[in-house]
């Protein structure tokens, strides 16, 4: 039982990060139909900027806020400089542009920062918390709590504020949104900034546990993307559930089967789900107009 609980905690912590990355994919996908493969780099930038800002003398909380702001600005720049000029292009081209952007950001991080691994101190100490025989670090609680707060805030933003609703409206029908007076450019800009900001936040929360380096984003983007697909691309609830499921599947796979196959376990589950539900667990059921 305590072994199971230990695996579950491990899965939930990792899964919470995947869920935030998947949410980032979802926000941009909803607003622009683009799958932004530079999403993992936002997570990396959040961690790396915080590390270096605090090395340069800023206190940790200030460094973290600055890192979120810098990363959002990079998200906005990505939209302005790379995505917007190619606005007329088809979705595949846009996706390739984001892949290019992710390689560029990784290279930039190598030059501006360095190629070493870095850590941040845990926010509230390293003394493990004992829960029914399994242990949990305080930082894991930060990660899970942070993810929960992000989800609630996003939910409020998208369903209770006019601006959030206008983003949703744009995602449903861009032309109609423009006709009712929604500033579509601003919506796109906001979605990139928002997505970058929550990515950065995830990076900051998780760096004390996982460490970070210039290429830490690649694997996270892949897992977050898988989580978003599993949950149903475009559905925020799906992104969260998908992220947690992938995380738990990995931890259980590593614990009960073999650590060699833990990535395989997660991807086999995803394939299995997609065979039965091609649009993911919570995806919009595709209706083809003939």
């Amino acid at each position: 039982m305590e072994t199971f609980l230990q695996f579950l905690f491990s899965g939930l912590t990792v899964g919470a990060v995947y869920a935030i990355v998947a949410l980032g994919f979802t926000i941009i996908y909803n607003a622009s139909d683009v799958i932004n493969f530079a999403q993992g780099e936002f997570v990396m930038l959040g961690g790396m900027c915080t590390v270096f800002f605090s090395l340069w003398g800023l206190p940790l909380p200030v460094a973290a806020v600055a890192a979120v702001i810098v990363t959002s600005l990079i998200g906005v720049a990505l939209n302005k400089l790379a995505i917007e000029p190619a606005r007329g292009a088809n979705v595949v081209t846009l996706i390739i542009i984001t892949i290019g952007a992710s390689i560029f950001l990784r290279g930039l991080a190598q030059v501006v920062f360095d190629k070493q691994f870095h850590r941040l101190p845990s926010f509230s100490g390293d003394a493990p918390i004992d829960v029914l025989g399994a242990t949990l670090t305080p930082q894991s609680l930060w990660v899970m709590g942070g993810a929960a707060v992000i989800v609630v805030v996003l939910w409020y933003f998208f369903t209770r504020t006019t601006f959030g609703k206008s983003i949703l409206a744009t995602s449903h029908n861009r032309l109609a949104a423009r006709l009712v007076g929604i500033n579509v450019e601003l919506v796109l800009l906001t979605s990139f900034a928002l997505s970058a900001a929550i990515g950065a936040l995830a990076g900051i929360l998780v760096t004390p546990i996982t460490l970070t380096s210039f290429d830490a984003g690649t694997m996270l983007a892949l897992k977050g993307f898988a989580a978003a697909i599993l949950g149903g691309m475009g559905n925020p609830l799906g992104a969260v559930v998908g992220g947690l499921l992938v995380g738990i599947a990995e931890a259980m796979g590593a614990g009960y089967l073999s650590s060699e196959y833990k990535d395989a376990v997660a991807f086999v589950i995803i394939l299995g789900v997609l065979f039965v539900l091609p649009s993911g667990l919570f995806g919009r059921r595709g209706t083809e107009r003939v």
Partner: protein
Amino acid sequence: MSLMTFLKATAATSALVAVAAFATGLTAGEAAAQIRIGSVLSITGPASFLGDPEDKTLRMYVDRINAEGGVNGEQLELIVYDSEGDANKARTLATRLIEDDEIVAMVGGSTTGTTMAMVPLFEDAEIPFISLAGGIVIIEPVNPFVFKTPHTDRMACEKVFEDMQARGLSRVGLISGTGGFGKSMRGQCLNVAEAYGIEIVADETYGPRDTDMTPQLTNIRNAQGLQAVLNPGFGQGPAIVTKNFAQLGIEVPLYQSHGVASKSFIELAGAAAEGVRLPASALLVANQLPDDDPQKQVVVDYKTAFEAEWNRPVSTFGGHAYDGLMILVDAMRRAGSADPVAIRDAIEETTGFMGTAGEVNMSPDDHMGLDLTAFRMLEIRDGDWTIVQ
């Protein structure tokens, strides 16, 4: 232009360039007799943490040797190429060193992969090649012209098991990285465990980019009668293993490998690193060695020189390059010649050479010449290395 004409044109151009280079080489040669030694290192790319200090070390010491009058009255000329950690590229560059640059010996090959790609070329050309990589395959079976300076991963396993034996620990859990280093060392440890009366009670692995090893460590913790845990691997993995190990409150001793023998490991793992033991080269604890230690002089000199010249902490990898170059220079002096075969014979006769990795005693069946005394068992205490007596 057809492909053939293009190739011919390229060949002709490179021939011209080669002739031109040869001509300049001759003019330079008349001014001062030169011994050309070559090096292919992974200066950039994923293995840059190996190649970069090696490159800096070689350049620095070749300049010093030349300033002191060179070897046998001739100046050394060092030609360094960057393989970027790519075995194919290493092979091409080695061909260039042998055919165009006409080197008499080579000190290089940062990784086992690049080294093994170059070995056949040096065997065919009969030019001595001192490798700076760890893999035991480089010297087993022995290739007449191939030598190496670093310890092997098998020796690291033996050193760890020796220490466990002394502490009366025999039931060991293994958690290994699946990267080249971790995989190879895991295999070597499984091979030699029995000879030290060690029983492997759990055998888990993790991927090079994994960020959470608590599931694997939970399984190891649950193994019956566990007495110690060993983690072969390098990079950030061992730091995360160490943190997870502390999080789970596992109370047996944790051993890491020489793969994490750098200050950054202590920084990354933080307080969790307290009490972790690992085998490492004396270079890491140069200033802590007792004054009567025969290795003290060498490691302190190298450390001081490197840190003064490059203003960065010394690494064991640069030390391997120092050993390689000094063994070569020593051999050339004893041979009194720069003939590749004479150099090879002299390298094989190296005895009692004190390098940063330990005392080197080569023989026709041992082209590394180090024994277990070359490793020091270290323990991390108060965020620093201490020597286990």
